[in-house]
């Protein structure tokens, strides 16, 4: 494979950003080559310029604001930068193709799946209608879509997310291109679907021998499929090498930080919390989302989001709720905080049933159970200063304004933010800092229970590690109980003492994290665990100088 001729060669590529951006060059001196039959992973955190690399190769940059300022991109020996737009159009889709992150937005919702794949053939191949149809059905079969005939006529919204991504891959591969660029193709997918798609990509690539430039932020995915890894930081290439070496013996300090930040799959030793008092007890929770029918259309089918879910949370304990999208885990977190009303069941917090409280009583009870939300930008009111955001809870519950503000400043210090940032607005902070503000807000009321709904899934991996450490730290210092909702089993393994696994609204397994990970009892748990990308790779212990 090493001797195969390079399909794509990028040399000293520089991409300029418009004036007034945080840095003048989005990419500064990127060298990389993709050989036939090779999977090159381009890894970096958000803002590292990895997606712009794809844009530069496909010549799809938002010019003239963002444009190539230097270097060369050669595809099968031809200099892409000197080609005319017409020549580029002939290449795209035919010799080089791209798969995007979000298949729902990348597919045209107005056209059937078959039509959209057919379009590629109409543009680039001289084939009769019959031949084209046969070819489309063949490629749909190759990406393992069940019943290609009916999929041909289906519209994008009629098939599942994983199948949509299969269609995208089919579209990219239908003409057997020499280069496929994949920009986070599995990030929007559930973990079990992700594994299937990754397997499919490797399988098809073996058959076709195309070169793949795979853009991702997830080291697990890298471990799963990469031959070669290129690490980007703020537009600069910091490390390049064979996957095995970069993953296990990273050399550059930044790569070491990134790899060290990847949560391992070894759960912490179970804490002896069996004797601690139960703080929160949920019993027989049920919730059905009845779709409200229109005036003339009848009632639509109701969705059972949560079916008979019970659990208990002891003081100082972290209970993980894990599951894929649609498993009802977020609904559970919202029932417990009564942001969504349950159909039946009870949630007892220190002996009083939250679900039976009147609205006025509930407002008082809320001080005991607080929440940290998934998207730190969306969960902070953009028109309020940080100090007011944090002080809001205590003020609502009757604390003197000045005292609440003073306390808010102390809390900022507790979550490791500078008190000087108190008078700024949320948009002036980075994602990790915003999530710290969200945590400070939750702590401001001295709650007994904190419900955290995917608190780190919107964050970069290195920031993720810091926020997780902070959460664990605060939990131990303030003896908080944490209900931690996540889809990421690596994250769950880091923080949770016990986990409950949910599938389609039901709890399928519950137990101490270490036991569930070592010996999963339910088939679904086993499937989840075996789908974790890079599960065979244990991040090397590099915690020497890394933060």
């Amino acid at each position, binding site marked *: 494979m090493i001797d195969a001729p390079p399909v794509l060669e990028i040399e000293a590529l520089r991409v300029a950003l418009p004036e007034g951006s945080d840095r003048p060059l989005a990419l500064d001196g990127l060298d990389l080559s993709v050989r036939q039959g090779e999977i090159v992973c381009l890894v970096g955190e958000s803002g590292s310029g990895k997606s712009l690399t794809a844009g530069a190769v496909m010549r799809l940059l938002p010019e003239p604001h963002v444009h190539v300022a230097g270097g060369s991109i050669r595809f099968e020996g031809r200099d892409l930068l000197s080609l005319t737009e017409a020549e580029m159009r002939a290449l795209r889709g035919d010799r080089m193709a791209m798969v995007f992150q979000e298949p729902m937005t990348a597919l045209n919702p107005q056209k059937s799946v078959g039509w959209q794949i057919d379009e590629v053939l109409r543009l680039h191949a001289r084939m009769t209608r019959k031949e084209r149809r046969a070819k489309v059905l063949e490629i749909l079969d190759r990406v393992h879509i069940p019943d290609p005939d009916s999929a041909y006529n289906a519209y994008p919204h009629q098939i599942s997310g994983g199948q949509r991504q299969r269609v995208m891959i089919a579209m990219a591969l239908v003409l057997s291109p020499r280069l496929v660029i994949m920009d986070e193709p599995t990030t929007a997918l559930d973990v079990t679907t992700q594994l299937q798609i990754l397997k499919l990509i490797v399988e098809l690539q073996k058959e076709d021998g195309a070169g793949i430039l795979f853009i991702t932020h997830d080291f697990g995915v890298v471990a799963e499929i990469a031959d070669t890894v290129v690490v980007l930081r703020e537009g600069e290439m910091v490390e390049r090498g064979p996957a095995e070496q970069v993953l296990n013996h990273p050399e550059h300090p930044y790569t070491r930080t990134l790899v060290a930040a990847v949560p391992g799959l070894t759960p912490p030793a179970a804490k002896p919390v069996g004797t601690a008092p139960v703080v929160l007890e949920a019993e027989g929770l049920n919730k059905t989302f009845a779709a409200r029918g229109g005036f003339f259309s009848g009632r639509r089918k109701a969705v059972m989001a949560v079916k008979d879910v019970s659990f208990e949370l002891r003081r100082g304990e972290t209970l993980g709720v894990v599951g894929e999208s649609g498993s009802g885990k977020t609904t559970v977190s*919202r029932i417990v*905080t009564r*942001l969504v009303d349950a159909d039946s069941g009870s949630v007892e917090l220190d002996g009083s049933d939250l679900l039976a409280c009147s609205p006025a009583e*509930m*407002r*008082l009870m*809320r*001080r005991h159970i*607080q*929440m940290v*939300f*998934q*998207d730190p930008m*969306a*969960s*902070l*009111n*953009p*028109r309020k200063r940080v100090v007011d955001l944090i002080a*809001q*809870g205590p003020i*609502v*519950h009757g604390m003197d304004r000045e005292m609440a503000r003073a306390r808010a400043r102390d809390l900022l210090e507790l979550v*490791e*933010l*500078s008190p*000087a*940032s108190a*008078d*700024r607005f949320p948009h*002036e*902070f*980075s994602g*990790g*800092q915003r999530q*710290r503000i*969200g945590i400070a*807000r939750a702590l401001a*009321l001295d709650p007994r229970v904190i419900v955290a709904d995917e608190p780190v899934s919107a964050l970069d991996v290195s920031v993720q590690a*810091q926020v997780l450490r902070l959460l664990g730290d605060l939990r131990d210092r303030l003896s908080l109980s944490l209900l931690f909702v996540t889809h990421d089993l690596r994250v769950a393994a880091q923080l949770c003492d016990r986990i409950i696994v949910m599938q389609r609204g039901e709890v399928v397994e519950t137990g101490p994290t270490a036991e569930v990970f070592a010996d999963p009892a339910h088939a679904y748990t086993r499937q989840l665990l075996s789908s974790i990308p890079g599960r065979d790779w244990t991040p090397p212990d590099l915690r020497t100088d890394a*933060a």
Partner: protein
Amino acid sequence: MSVAATGAPADEPGRLAVFWRRYRRNRAALLGLGIFVAVVLMALTAGLVEPDDPLRRAGAPLTAPFTDWATPLGTDQLGRDILAGIFHGARISLLIGVVATLISIAIGVVIGALSGYFGGWVDDVLMRVTDAFQTIPSFVLLLALVAILGSSIEYITLAIGIVSWTAPARMVRAEFMSLRNREFVDAARNLGVGDASLIFREILPNALPPIIVYASVIMALSILLESALAFLGLGDPNYASWGNMIGQGRAVLRTAWHCAAIPGVAIVLTVLSFSLLGEGLNDALNPRQKKT
């Protein structure tokens, strides 16, 4: 590394400065602002131009503009000074524009906010009421209201406010429906914040920019509605409003067209200034809608 944020940069421009910088980019909006300021100045200095009564006889009837310096813009068929009428009319037009807009926005915000925030049957009831108002052409409704209430300036203003609240109500409802499910609203509710505070302190400030922009449109529409009423002879005859002047000038349109044309130009410019102003506000308040 872990103490993440640093102190705020000292020379960071304030919100107003940023707002002004964005607003300034749009030349047409600057023109609108200029005309608007001129109209406000006219309203403020109306007392200096004609201290007594703009409806008194100031010179020979139907004097052409620029012939007699006592009445620079000429006089109408009753010998009233048109310049004085324009200045005092600016007062009336602005007064009607501002008050009617406040009335319509206030009704619209309350109805739209309740409807969008609570949804369900509250939404159904309020929106059917809104539909009922929207099915009647607003000018016809205005005529009916003025016929019932009488055509004093207060009632005209109130009636204009009442006929124009439906559009802002729909807009506020749409804003609230999209904002009420945002996480920051859940976050505030989770702190124990009550419904009223959620509506007015959390959601409304975030829904405000499009409302402010739309207010400028309503202001322009209110002035037009008042002029249209006055043109039909249903305005308040005790005030020199631009619409009244056009309505009376209509009778002598062929012999002394300036009687109708001058207040007409005043209306056109004022309404234009409001819509340019609104566009500028839109650019400045919703910068993400437009690519720079």
